[in-house]
């Protein structure tokens, strides 16, 4: 079933157009990669889909509903969650609290019960604390449950952001360069982690420059170049597409 439809999407900043008439769709439960050279518009596309930027023209449909221009927090409530290329961690909080913020929508906090610490608030908070710890274990961060986010190494923060995004209980998870800045061992672990998340029924949209990771996990690949769709298809189809080879992968890309 189709989960996300992007129709004639166009985004410009002033006179500078970043996305041109982009149309594609993403199937529910797939691992869908979006690749392209720097400046191809991948992150802008993420920002439009997750409601951080309104598009200039075009529509975005999620599970059949038109979500164009809706604010990010409303899209999170519909089940769209993401990580960021340049980490967006709450550095003023503990690691566990970072994940707990991800449960914000499930907690549905209200002012008065929180002010008076109603027993229900305390009980629920305790529940979510346990779930947050389990989630940290799932992404391999058990050792950091008691840590302050500001004291954690880069690789761990990337996982922390992933755990926070999962706490939102997304139907679709957008990962913006999850392998950037990781060593080969950490990237290897990421393959399995992404596949395990997909097995839970979460659609994955992956923007990534690490082609090994892209070939390893993707069911479907969309290639962008200067804000336009250059090609799409399975890994094999894309890899042998002459336009893609010329524009992006270059001669060495085939063998990487």
């Amino acid at each position, binding site marked *: 079933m189709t989960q996300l439809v992007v129709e004639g999407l166009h985004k410009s900043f002033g006179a500078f157009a970043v996305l041109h008439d982009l149309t594609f769709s993403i199937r529910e439960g797939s691992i869908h990669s979006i690749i392209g050279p720097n400046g191809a518009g991948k992150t802008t596309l993420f920002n439009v889909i997750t*409601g951080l930027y309104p598009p200039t023209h075009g529509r975005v449909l999620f599970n059949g509903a038109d979500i164009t221009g809706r*604010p*990010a927090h409303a899209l999170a409530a519909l089940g769209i969650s993401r990580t960021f290329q340049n980490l967006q961690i709450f550095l003023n909080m503990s690691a566990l609290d970072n994940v707990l913020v991800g449960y914000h929508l499930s907690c549905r906090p209200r002012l008065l019960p929180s002010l008076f*610490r109603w027993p229900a*608030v305390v009980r629920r908070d305790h529940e979510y604390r346990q779930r947050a710890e389990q989630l940290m274990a799932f992404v391999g961060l058990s050792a950091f449950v008691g840590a302050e986010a500001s004291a954690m190494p880069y690789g761990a923060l990337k996982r922390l952001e992933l755990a926070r995004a999962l706490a939102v209980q997304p139907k679709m998870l957008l990962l913006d360069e999850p392998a950037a800045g990781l060593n080969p061992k950490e990237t290897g672990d990421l393959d399995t982690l992404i596949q395990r998340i997909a097995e839970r029924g979460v659609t994955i949209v992956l923007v990534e420059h690490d082609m090994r990771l892209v070939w390893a996990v993707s069911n479907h690949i969309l290639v962008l170049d200067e804000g336009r769709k250059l090609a799409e298809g399975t890994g094999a189809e894309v890899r042998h597409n002459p336009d893609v080879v010329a524009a992006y992968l270059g001669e060495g890309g085939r063998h990487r």
Partner: protein
Amino acid sequence: MVDHRRKGTRGLVLLALIIVALPAVIPNAYIYDVVILIGINAIVCIGLNLLIGYAGQISLGHAGFFGLGAYASPLLSDRLDWPPALALLAAAMAVGLLSFAVAKPILKLRGHYLAMATLGLGIIISIVLNQEGQLTGGPDGMPVPPFSLLGQRAEGEATWYWIVGALLLATVWLTLNLVDSPVGRALRALHGSEVAAAVTGIDVLRYKIMVFVLSAVLASVAGSVYAHYAGFITPSEATFFRSIEFVTMVVLGGMASTFGALIGAALLTALPQVLTPLQDYQMLTFGAVLVGTMVFMPKGLVPSLAERLARHRR
């Protein structure tokens, strides 16, 4: 976090003990007066710290809300003959509504722009209090009827000490609860990263408005209490300088620390009393404290000391 909560409870118990024990060592009415003013300022600062320290927003106009509470409550009880307690609550509600109405356009702004907008708001309130002479008595101020509840009149420093003490304790308790709840987490989250907060489902603007209104209401209540306690009110309580005083107290005591705000209020309320010979230089002193804190101790007194203590223990 559980540890955090235990620390909070310990602090609350300690504060209660101090409030109960303090009258035994207060020698005279003058010291009572200083301690009561500390309590009133602390209530404002604890609310303002939710906005500045936890949510990472700024207000340079909170004395305006303090002033509105200080004028509205006596006006309602005097002119409309309302019971003072009801007038205080009505004033708090009115300030809540006003701050809610202005919050949306103001809190869409960030950084310097937010600072300028709140500064402007405070100045407007100050001008209105000065100019509406028939209502407020203008720059000369106006007398305030005494506070009474269920036929009991609140008179004398000792009575007011317990009223302010109880209010302060309640404010600290509610604030500690809030900070340690999912709402408090959402506030700290939008301080840390607004985009990340938004994509995890936090309605950033809604939470900013909520904390702005909450801090304005606390300032209003403190203002009403101050007016009834002092028995006389002038627009000097709603000036820009008073707003800066509140911010300086929060910054000195410590960002994102409820007890820090309390200690900042205590130090900077007591300081001018100790330095009466330097009265003409009060603004200068506050400016120096603000700059000094930002340069040498940007996290403020209480968080910095806590960190040093933790390092020492290790």
